[in-house]
């Protein structure tokens, strides 16, 4: 199929290259001497991120420092990326706890379903984005790592307060 070219009649009467150039130069000069710059000096200053930011995970703990997780198995079930590995265990009192709890952060799509579905408010997605590691293995977070994280966690969308105020 041939190309459909739209042909427009140019308003030659008003067109001027030299004057348009000068106008553009005035514009760029104005920007150049404008003291307001938008650069964020990253490592020293950081942009504030949204309260609903969904970053790498964090497992909240009870007062005794144990993970709140009861190994109910809801999060691996709901996870659309299938990135949570959970092996449940049970102690003498019959309390369930996770023997293995691993999240592959490379696989995770950060939808936050795990946090939404968790009945114990144990697993959370975090308000955090600095995730450098020396190897790919470093991005499979085990339970110990998840518990050790300290960054603030995401506040999920609340139907009572849809705008987050």
């Amino acid at each position, binding site marked *: 199929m041939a190309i*459909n070219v739209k042909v427009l009649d*140019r308003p030659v*009467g008003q067109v*001027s*290259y030299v004057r348009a*150039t000068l106008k*553009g130069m005035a514009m760029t000069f104005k920007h150049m001497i404008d003291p307001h710059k938008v650069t964020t000096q990253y490592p020293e200053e950081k942009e504030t991120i949204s309260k609903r930011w969904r970053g790498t995970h964090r497992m909240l703990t009870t007062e005794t420092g144990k993970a709140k997780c009861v190994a109910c198995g809801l999060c691996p079930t709901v996870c659309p990326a299938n990135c949570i590995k959970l092996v449940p265990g049970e102690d003498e009192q019959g309390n369930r706890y996770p023997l293995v709890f691993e999240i592959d952060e490379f696989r995770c799509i950060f939808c936050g379903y795990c946090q939404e579905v968790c009945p114990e408010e144990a697993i959370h997605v975090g308000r955090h984005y600095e995730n450098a590691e020396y190897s790919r293995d470093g991005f499979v977070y085990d339970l110990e790592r998840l518990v050790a994280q300290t960054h603030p966690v995401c506040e999920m969308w609340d139907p009572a307060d849809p705008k987050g105020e």
Partner: protein
Amino acid sequence: MISASLIATAHTLPDPPLPFGVFFISTVVKMVAVFTVYMVGVALLTLAERKISAWIQGRLGPNRVGGKLGLLQPAADGVKNIMKEETLPGHVNKPMFMLAPMLAFIPAMLAWAVIPFGAPWDSRWGRIQMVVADLPVGFLFTLAITSLGVYGIVIAGWASNNKYALLGGLRSTAQMISYEIAMGMSLIPVLLLAGNVTLNQIIDQQASMHTWNVLNLTISFFIFMVAAFAETNRLPFDLPEAESELIAGYHTEYSAMKFSMFPISEYANMATSSALMATLFFGGWDIPFTQQDNTTGVSFFMLLLSIGIFMAKTLFFIFVFIWIRWTLPRFRYDQLMSLGWKFLLPMALAYIVIVASVILVLDYIGLERGFLYGLAMFGVNIVLVFIAFFILDRGRIISPAYGRATPQQIARLRAVTVARSHLSPQSGD
């Protein structure tokens, strides 16, 4: 005011030649000084470009090395470029590939040999001209040498054995040839007015007329500036590089220090063109509102002042180069050619005729070559600038590269479009 005949006689009497020792030492000192200042200046230009582009775009620019202004950034870049791995692709023509970066850089630097950077200094050893080589052929040498710069680019493009590089090289050839002519033609009015090709005497002529050539020959200056942009491959004429079309153009295959020789030579060319513009049209080292000219020497203080003035003028044009780069988009190739051949060249030719007639008339009336003469030329130029920028410049300079479509042509094209969109409903607009 000095009459034309007086200037002519003044220059026919040469200065007494310097003793060989003084000549030798002063030349070596001047060479070393010019080379050092030039190389450091070019290095700092890369920083200036990054800073100014950042400010124009609302950013801060490099500020991590060497304080808030990032003054050590060129050094850091240099170290990085030298430490980098240098690749030599297997398919290149090796000798040419190695030669090209040098060929690109050397002409830009050679041109500085004839540019006077200060008033002649009456030292205790005799009068020393502040120019490395006081060649009688003056800017003819500059023009010849700067046009050699294209060889570096063409050879780089050809030796790379890469289609993008070759296209970049070809474009640069076409561009250089087109704009070289306009550039040469735009300088003929300068010759008509100065009557000499030596750059020092062109400065003299401007100083003695008390009006710089930018006022006497405004259109020439405009054409020269546009051509200089094209010659240095700077935006809006950077078609040989054209990142969006040709990857990196002629230096696609280069890496490390060989690659950075090309940007360095671009900046070197920029500095040379700026110095030429300052010399030919803005009075060079001529200190404004003074009577100083080449026929007498100056004290050491005045020498430093004149060097400062020359540098200020040159830096201003360098700033204009950078400023325009971050303002204008790139030309389309056909627009480039039509601007060069259909606009700048005829304009330059017409301007030569006009300037020659004006000079003839003014000389016939018997007006002395002085302030009034300059004022008369300025008056003529105001009229010409108005005609060029307000009457001629109506979409004719750039916009429709091949002329405007007639209403009949447009109607026919529209009819074709409508017919097609009826045939296939999906492809309609």
